């Protein structure tokens, strides 16, 4: 149905917004949140296609994405904390030790 197009369009839009955010923001935690937003956009897309194709595979996929996202959140934030301990900052530009 044509109405599904809207959901897909929204999913795409949110994905792109998240991608832009990932590139623009310097705060590592905010970058992480943008990544979560991208994942969510994809989840929406999965659900929409599940509805279109007539089976629940898409929704199962979303389930697993959520599981992984949870694990990823835990580990990612732990990393940010660990980096913060040595650098005392969460800004991505401060963790750069390569001399350009």
């Amino acid at each position, binding site marked *: *149905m044509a*109405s*599904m*197009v*809207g*959901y897909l*369009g*929204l999913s*795409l*839009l*949110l994905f*792109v*917004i*998240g991608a*832009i*955010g990932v*590139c*623009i*923001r310097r*705060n590592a*935690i*905010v970058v992480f*949140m*943008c990544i*979560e*937003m991208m994942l*969510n956009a994809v*989840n929406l897309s999965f*659900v929409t296609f*599940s*509805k*279109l*194709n*007539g*089976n*629940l595979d898409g*929704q*199962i996929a*979303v*389930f697993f994405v*959520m*599981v*992984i*996202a*949870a*694990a*990823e*959140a*835990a*580990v990612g*934030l*732990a990393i*940010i904390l*660990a980096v*913060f*301990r040595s*650098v005392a*900052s*969460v*800004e991505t530009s401060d963790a750069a030790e390569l001399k350009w």
Partner: protein
Amino acid sequence: MTFMGFVLALCAVASGIGVIGFRNPLYSAFSLVANLMTMAGLYALLDAHFLAVSQIVVYAGAIMVLVLFVLMLLNLKVEGGPKLGVVRATIALGAGVLILMTAVQPIFRHFEGMSAINLRENAARTVGDVASIGEQLFGRYLVQFELSSLVLLIGIVGAVMLAKRKSATLAPRDGYQGAKEV
């Protein structure tokens, strides 16, 4: 897309822009919570009831709480210093627009072939309530389900190891005003 769906979509986009727009990371976090809530609403509209609820419980309830904890813990100043550069922003925006514009057409074309009757039938079948989801999870996708529990375990162990306290001194930098030891 129903009227409700449209409203929710608007809210989702607005909060999305809020996530990337706010200087204060706390505001970004709250915007994200709002975004996740609207997503849950959208799932519900699409008859994925189980997912809608687990979205609120897991994402908004657990993950975002964790993020907020960390943000509070670090007690950061508002993101200072010069912004990352207009050039960068333009490039990123350009890339994004490029993706958008390219993807739009195939999406529309995809649906031309499908007949309306088929779609309605499919729509009727996919009601994502607990029972049907459960059937799939413990039936067809049982192995993946078990493995995902393993992933969670690994995540826990990893997080604990990484966040364990080591007695290291901190070099003060811009933006840090909190406790000496974390």
